[in-house]
């Protein structure tokens, strides 16, 4: 009973506040501007032009890179947090999120102050007699900005899974003569996969559609799919094309994620032996 009841409110909630609005977006995406609703595939056809596909490809590429870096940097951090003494653990986790409570724009501008030509980082470099470098307005700067803003969303879910992970399993593996690396590869990592998948979703999905970071740190040199959608809704006032782009983006990512999820589940069920 409780099992069924407990998700009831959310079914209702998600119907009203997620499904209905998305229906609206779908309706927009399959119609063209005009008085009455007229079914049309024009918006989707239009997106197949090379110029738009290029924008999409670039956005996906940057999001994938940012997600991988977040994972590589965040996983060890999650492990360190999870094995910390209980006394410090909560505060350490809190300290991880607190910077994100300051406004995003302020933090990004602060990064620009650090990275710019006469910025803090270059002052430090020249203090040590090193040559000045250009950091801003490069893909590196964008990745830095994305990792900075999304890292906690990768660390937190992995950390929660790693705490209270069954230590006896790890000990058993060690007793059986497995070295640290094998233990990690065959036991710890596969067991933490649900957390990793949550983290990847929470980083990759928003990263694909974000564009403010690249506007600021890449100097708006390139258009990302988020810009494109924003422009359709606000500047051109063509909600139809904007809706179509975001629907395509969504369907594409949902399919990718469900494939990943399946791989992930298989991994867990088989003890992670095969796919990794």
């Amino acid at each position, binding site marked *: 009973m409780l099992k069924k009841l407990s998700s009831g409110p959310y079914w209702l909630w998600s119907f009203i506040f997620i499904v209905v609005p998305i229906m609206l977006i779908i309706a927009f995406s399959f119609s063209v501007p005009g008085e009455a609703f007229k079914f049309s595939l024009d918006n989707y056809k239009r997106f197949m032009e090379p*110029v*738009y596909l*290029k*924008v999409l490809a670039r956005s996906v590429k940057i999001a994938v890179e940012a997600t991988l870096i977040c994972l590589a940097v965040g996983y060890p951090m999650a492990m360190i947090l999870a094995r910390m003494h209980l006394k410090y653990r909560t505060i350490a986790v809190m300290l991880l999120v607190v910077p994100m409570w300051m406004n995003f724009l302020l933090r990004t*501008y602060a990064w*620009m*102050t650090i990275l*710019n*030509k*006469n*910025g803090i980082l270059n002052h430090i470099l020249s203090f040590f007699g090193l040559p000045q470098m250009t950091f*801003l*307005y490069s893909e590196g700067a964008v990745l830095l900005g994305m990792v900075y803003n999304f890292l906690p969303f990768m660390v937190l879910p992995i950390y929660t899974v790693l705490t209270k992970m069954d230590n006896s399993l790890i000990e058993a593996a060690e007793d059986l003569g497995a070295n640290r690396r094998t233990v990690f590869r065959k036991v710890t990592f596969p067991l933490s996969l649900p957390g990793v998948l949550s983290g990847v979703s929470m980083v990759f999905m928003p990263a694909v559609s974000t564009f403010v970071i690249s*506007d*600021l740190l*890449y*100097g*708006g*040199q*390139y*258009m990302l799919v988020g*810009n*494109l959608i924003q*422009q*359709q*809704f*606000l*500047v*051109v*006032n*063509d909600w139809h094309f904007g809706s179509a782009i975001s629907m395509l983006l969504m369907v594409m990512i949902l399919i990718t994620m469900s494939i990943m999820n399946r791989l992930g589940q298989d991994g867990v069920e088989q003890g992670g032996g095969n796919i990794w």
Partner: protein
Amino acid sequence: MKKKWLIGVLLMVLVMSVSGCKKDDQVVLNVYNWGDYIDESIFDTFEEETGIKVNYETYATNEEMYTKIKNGGSNYDIAIPSDYMIEKMIKEDMLEPLNMDSIPNFANIDDQFKDLAFDPQNKYSIPYFWGTVGIIYNTDLIEEEIDSWDALWNPKYAGMFTMVDSQRDSIMVALKKLGYSMNTKSVAELEEAKALLIEQKPLVLAYVGDNVKDMLISGEAAMAVVWSGEASTVIQEYDNFKYALPKEGSNKWFDNIVIPKGSEHVAEAHQFIDFLCRGDIGFLNADYVGYATCNTETMELLDPALMGTTYAYPDKALLENFEVFLDPGDFISEYDRVWTEIKAN
């Protein structure tokens, strides 16, 4: 234990939120304005004089404001859109006609800012601030005198300047350089502008949406396409900057006060507009914002040194080729296509 504490906090917060938005008989005027574009202390003065309270909200672009007002659900009594947006809103019947009898201070507005093409006879709007788009440059880093858009195509300045991250403003620069109207509806002219902007792209340090002032002050950029008001704030604080009005012409813009349809306090909104048109109030705003006022009485109160500067009250002769943006209607999708193609490259 823990849960009781949680419920307690929740209740407290709910009570706070209810009491926070309690209503009484006082008339409240919803004012919708660009961020940081008014001296907020005048709201208190207005309330003292008339008993009308001001509820203040802000937006960052004309389009954001338009989308919100267009879709109803909130009743703004005052908004301050720019020229082309006013034209669009008039076309779409989104503005309340003004009754000049209730705005005697309209007489303070300089005649050259009245009766403009986007709102003939000022049926719907009253000028607030005006300005131009031009080039600001750091005289320590750029020695020659800049007077033309050509500087932004000069390889000598590669990686030293910024463009505006907005389709119409950037395309305007290219169109003007080519000698075309910035309100062109010719695809061929747009294509030419596109080629020019693609050619320029490797030279551009960044396309900036905001915060351009910091980039100039820190020395990251030596030159930038900016709104005159931004130039004015930078130049008044740092004397190694100059503002140039390109001889090919550029954008001359106006931000006017309007009353959106759906306002529940039209009479009080008129009162507020009249208040804004008062010389002393106009002075407070002009002094705070740093943009050029359209009000003759305010102009008399301002520092005479400002008169004749390129960034505040330029010589009329310099503005000969300047134009005001018009609403392109559906043709905006062509601008969008061109911009996407420039940015996707």
